[in-house]
């Protein structure tokens, strides 16, 4: 194994609560892959939506503060939650490119940050810094025969110009990752559609509808499991499956896993450390049936 | 029933060595007609020496088949069974000619338009019909004579009717090509409607300067004989040899003498509402068409001149330093000869009197697009300022309504006038530039900005000027409290909307100029039901009229913008240059002829001929055919009481034998 690399890591609120399993598995996997997630000390919430209105400086401050703090600690910041990633990356880009805003923000947060941090999603670290072929070499238990549908959602991809994560309409990065795990990626049209986001609180019927379409499409295309990167999406398409079932009687549950859980499993981590108990739809029967655990 | 003597030889059929070539036209024919079986059956006819089929007879290998057969089998007549003769008759006649056969011994049997296309669901019957058509055509070919094309000498000058941008462009192109051009304009100066425009889309160039440059070029061009204030009175003749009578209307000013000092205009005491200014300005009884007009000479308008009304004034005559006023001048008629004619008669806007909508004509602040153009023109009645006609105030709320009488098939015109979307956007843009705090509203149906740079112009204008486009027609416009109220719907929100406007501009339909139908009758060319000139074929002959030698240019053919008009006018010039590039014109000899032994000289044919191609030979007491004028229509043949006329290669015998083929075939069933 090569030298240990450190990446500054911003977990985000949900990863300490609802999505602990995402957080934990990511940390464990990185150790196996030869790098460490160094948690940003005293981080605060990212604000959860990238403030879009032009003069909404206030909402830009939490992510700016995070970025400025991170810059004092290092040069690359990584996140797992797609929403946090979206907010932080876009704020970073804004600070980089908009001198006027940069000055305003720095005045407010009483720091001096120029936007010179690299903001990478954990998946990007895996692809760009480690390399999928290299990861593939370290896979102990290939997830052979597992038909997995990669669900991107919105936040990783859009807005395309600012995120630059992958092709805006036909992304494949996530599938490449699944292939490296030895799984069989299932392409399905709804992989880039919205999960309903926070409307699951305000107008739960929207999120139910979105979830039904996304999962239904994945199932129709042969998926046995849906893989996600985002706690918000996971909430809507995993935890809300009871609502979906209530509304659509023909709906059959399907496990939704974080990509890091799959990664951990393939890397040979004990399944009991992968936090499956936090998954709403129990994936264990499927994983057992497939012989992975 | 009395038959002419010649028909008594009906049964003595001529036998020739004939060839039949059946085209599949891809699947156009072969998909319906069993071409192989037809070729086989026709091949068994006694004098058919060669019968074959091929996927595309018009292709090079197809023609090669024909050439080889003609050469090797020594064919004396050829029938090609394929599409309409208007498509490839020429192709195949050329092919047989290259092997030394007289081209008029080659005939087309149309088994596509007249058979396979119309009987797509009856394959067997279609196959039978195709066979009959070919057999009938064989009958025709058996009797066909060897003919030579008629050579007509041509006059290599051209008449252009209409001095707008289309006529000017065609005239200049032709003159540059070395041809003499007679340019006729009914108004007293060149330029047509373009002289009324302020600036033109999409680059907002002022309309007049470039136009005047062209007009001046025309005025001094040695190859162009310009006749303004003139109309065409009569046309005789045919392609290559038209004889014209031009009426030069009396201007009552000797243009040779006039030194353009303008004193007459200044001192003329009569002012009346100017048509040119669309009712927004006045002009004098003696005046130019517009200040910089080319030619820059005044005309006295008799209906307004006091001298002509009651003889009470001779002011212009008194002040003219050159003694150029000619009250006694009369219309003059001049005769000219040309080889081809361009009709560039242009357009009008839908007449106000017939548009009983939107308060147009009643509410002074409801004007049409051309009237706004006059307002926007620096030399116009308001010196370029937009003001309400009613009270001279600057309008703060301005409504533009598109598709007024266009795209309104049941009540007005079904077609799209093509230019309104763009000129309305242009006008709204200029309005916003002049009245930055004003609000333009544009009611539209579809935004049609399909020319080069138009979409970009429109988007930029909307972005910069904040035009509000409302998608939907206006239902009503009425006057209320000094405002013009406009009731409409915005279909995008589905809401009824009301605008209290200061002024309303209607983009009224583009219609053909007055008098086009009369002119069409004189020229024996056709116009469509709206009065637009019809082209011979929308794609193959788009600038040719239905009458040979008469060509089309500009909006008289259909609405178009300046750029398209100019391209088309040049295209017209190109076609004419090709026509006139030789001294002689070859015409099809498929015309009428007279059996001099039978003709009694009754003269019925002379009266009936629509082309004036028949005349009496008073010496011999018989009627003769003017070969260049005859179009082979057959009217005289039907009318002749003595069966003295026949059409070449379309004789009664041929027709009867062809009919016989069908009748016997029908009887067989």
């Amino acid at each position, binding site marked *: 194994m090569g030298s240990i690399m450190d990446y500054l890591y911003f977990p985000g609120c949900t990863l300490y609560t609802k999505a602990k399993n995402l957080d934990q598995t990511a940390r464990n996997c990185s150790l196996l892959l030869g790098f460490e997630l160094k948690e940003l000390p005293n981080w605060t919430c990212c604000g959860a939506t990238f403030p*879009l209105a032009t003069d909404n400086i206030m909402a830009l401050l939490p992510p700016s503060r995070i970025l400025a703090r991170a810059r004092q600690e290092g040069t690359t910041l990584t996140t797992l939650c797609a929403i946090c990633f979206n907010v932080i990356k876009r704020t970073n880009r804004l600070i980089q490119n908009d001198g006027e805003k940069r000055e305003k923000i720095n005045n407010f947060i009483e720091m001096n940050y120029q936007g010179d941090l690299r903001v990478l999603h954990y998946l990007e670290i895996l692809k760009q810094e480690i390399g999928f072929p290299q990861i593939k070499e370290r896979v102990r238990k290939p997830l052979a025969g597992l038909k997995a549908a990669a669900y991107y959602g919105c936040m990783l991809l859009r807005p395309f110009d600012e995120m630059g994560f992958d092709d805006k309409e036909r992304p494949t990065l996530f599938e490449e990752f699944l292939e490296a795990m030895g799984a069989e990626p299932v392409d399905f049209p709804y992989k880039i559609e*919205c999960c309903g*986001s926070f409307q699951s609180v305000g*107008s739960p019927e929207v999120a139910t509808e979105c979830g039904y379409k996304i999962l239904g499409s994945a199932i129709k295309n042969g998926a046995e499991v849906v893989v996600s990167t985002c706690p918000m999406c996971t909430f809507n398409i995993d935890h809300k499956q009871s609502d979906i079932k209530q509304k659509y009687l023909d709906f059959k549950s399907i496990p939704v896993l974080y990509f890091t859980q799959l990664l951990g499993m393939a890397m040979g981590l004990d399944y009991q450390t992968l936090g499956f108990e936090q998954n709403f739809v129990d994936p264990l029967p499927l994983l057992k049936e497939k012989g992975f655990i | 029933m009395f038959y002419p003597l010649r028909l008594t030889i009906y049964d003595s059929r001529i036998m020739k060595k004939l060839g039949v070539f059946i085209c599949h036209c891809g699947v156009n024919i072969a998909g319906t007609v069993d071409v192989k079986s037809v070729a086989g059956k026709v091949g068994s006819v006694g004098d058919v020496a060669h019968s074959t089929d091929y996927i595309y007879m018009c292709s090079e290998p197809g023609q090669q088949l024909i050439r080889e057969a003609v050469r090797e089998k020594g064919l004396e007549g050829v029938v090609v069974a394929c599409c309409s003769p208007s498509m490839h008759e020429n192709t195949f006649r050329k092919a047989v000619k290259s092997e030394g056969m007289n081209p008029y011994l080659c005939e087309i049997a149309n088994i596509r338009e007249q058979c396979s296309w119309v009987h797509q669901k009856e394959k067997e019957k279609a196959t039978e019909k195709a066979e009959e058509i070919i057999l009938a055509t064989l009958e025709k070919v058996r009797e066909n004579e060897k003919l030579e094309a008629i050579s007509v000498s041509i006059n290599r000058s051209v008449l252009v009717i209409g001095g707008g941008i289309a006529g000017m462009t065609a005239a200049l192109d032709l003159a540059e090509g070395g041809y003499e051009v007679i340019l006729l304009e009914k108004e007293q100066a060149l330029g047509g409607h373009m002289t009324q425009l302020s600036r033109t889309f999409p680059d907002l160039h002022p309309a007049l300067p470039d136009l005047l440059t062209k007009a001046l070029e025309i005025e001094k061009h040695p190859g162009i004989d310009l006749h303004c204030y003139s109309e065409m009175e009569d046309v005789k003749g045919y392609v290559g040899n038209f004889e014209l009578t031009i009426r030069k209307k009396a201007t009552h000013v000797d243009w040779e003498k006039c030194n353009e000092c303008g004193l007459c205009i200044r001192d003329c005491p009569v002012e009346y509402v100017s048509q040119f200014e669309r009712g927004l300005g006045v002009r004098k009884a003696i005046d130019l068409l517009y200040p910089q007009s080319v030619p820059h000479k005044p005309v006295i308008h008799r209906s307004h001149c006091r001298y002509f009304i009651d003889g009470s004034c001779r002011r212009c005559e008194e002040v003219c330093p050159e003694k150029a006023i000619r009250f006694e001048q009369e219309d003059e008629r001049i005769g000219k000869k040309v080889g081809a004619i361009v009709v560039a008669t242009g357009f009008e806007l839908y007449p106000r009197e017939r548009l009983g909508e939107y308060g147009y004509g009643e509410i002074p602040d409801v004007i049409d697009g051309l009237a706004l153009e006059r307002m926007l023109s620096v030399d116009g009645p308001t010196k370029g300022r937009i003001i309400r006609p009613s009270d001279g105030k600057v309008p703060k709320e301005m409504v533009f309504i598109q598709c007024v009488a266009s795209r309104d098939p049941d009540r007005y015109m079904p077609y799209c006038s093509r230019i309104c979307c763009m000129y309305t956007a242009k006008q709204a843009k200029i309005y916003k530039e002049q009245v930055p705090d004003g609000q333009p509203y544009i009611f539209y149906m579809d935004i049609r900005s399909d020319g080069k740079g138009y979409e970009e112009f429109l988007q930029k204008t909307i972005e910069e000027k904040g035009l509000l486009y409302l998608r939907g027609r206006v239902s009503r416009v009425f006057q209320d409290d000094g405002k013009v109220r406009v009731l409409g719907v*915005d279909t995008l929100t589905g809401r009824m909307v*009301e605008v209290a406007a200061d002024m309303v501009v209607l983009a009224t339909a583009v219609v053909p100029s007055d008098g086009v139908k009369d002119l069409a009758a004189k020229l024996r060319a056709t116009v469509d039901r709206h009065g637009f000139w019809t082209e011979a074929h929308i794609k193959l002959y788009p600038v040719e009229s239905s009458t040979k030698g008469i060509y089309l240019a500009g909006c008289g053919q259909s609405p178009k913008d300046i750029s398209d008009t100019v391209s088309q006018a040049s295209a017209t010039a190109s076609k004419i240059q090709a026509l006139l590039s030789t001294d002689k014109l070859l015409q099809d000899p498929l015309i009428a002829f007279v059996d001099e032994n039978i003709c009694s000289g009754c003269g019925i044919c002379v009266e009936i001929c629509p082309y004036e191609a028949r005349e009496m030979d008073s010496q011999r007491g018989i009627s003769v055919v003017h070969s260049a004028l005859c179009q082979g229509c057959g009217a005289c043949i039907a009318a002749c009481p003595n069966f003295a006329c026949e059409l070449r290669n379309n004789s009664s015998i041929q027709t009867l034998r062809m009919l016989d083929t069908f009748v016997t075939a029908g009887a067989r069933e």
Partner: protein
Amino acid sequence: MEAITEMNKMDATFLEEAKKRSGEDLSLCYQCLKCTAGCPTAPIMDIRPNNIIRMIQMGMKQEVLGSSAIWLCVSCETCGTRCPNKIDIGVLMDALREMAIDEGIHAKEKNIHLLHEAFIDSIRRGGRVHEATMLIDYKLRSKDFLTDLVPGMMLFMKGKIPLLPSLVKGRGEIKRIFERCKK
């Protein structure tokens, strides 16, 4: 019957303000409906995204700012990704929400508004979002105790929502920032 919209009485400044605050050039809209066609929440919006732009152009301020639509947008950015004129309606909606708050216009979809407020307050208090308190806060504000109670309960049972908010050191700083921004 729907009232006739009198164009002259429309608030012409609304378009300018919305343009300024969103930074989006709303005049460019083709009304091609591509935004609505791809929008996940359009089916439940009272005014669909394309019509929001249209009504802004027509100056219908009260109706737009009072609509539920502006609170239903989840900023998924599908519209902006595909718009031929790159009008980002997500951005616009955010600006409209702000304008609505500034104007004190009460949203039809008040729950969402309240959720946003509860969320902001949660950050203000603890520096991080604490879902349980946030949800309770939201429930109190919305006086809606029934919906979502069941999943909420289940989340508690599964131990996903920690009962005590975690406190971070920077929270004083965050509070200060909020205070300053309020001014």
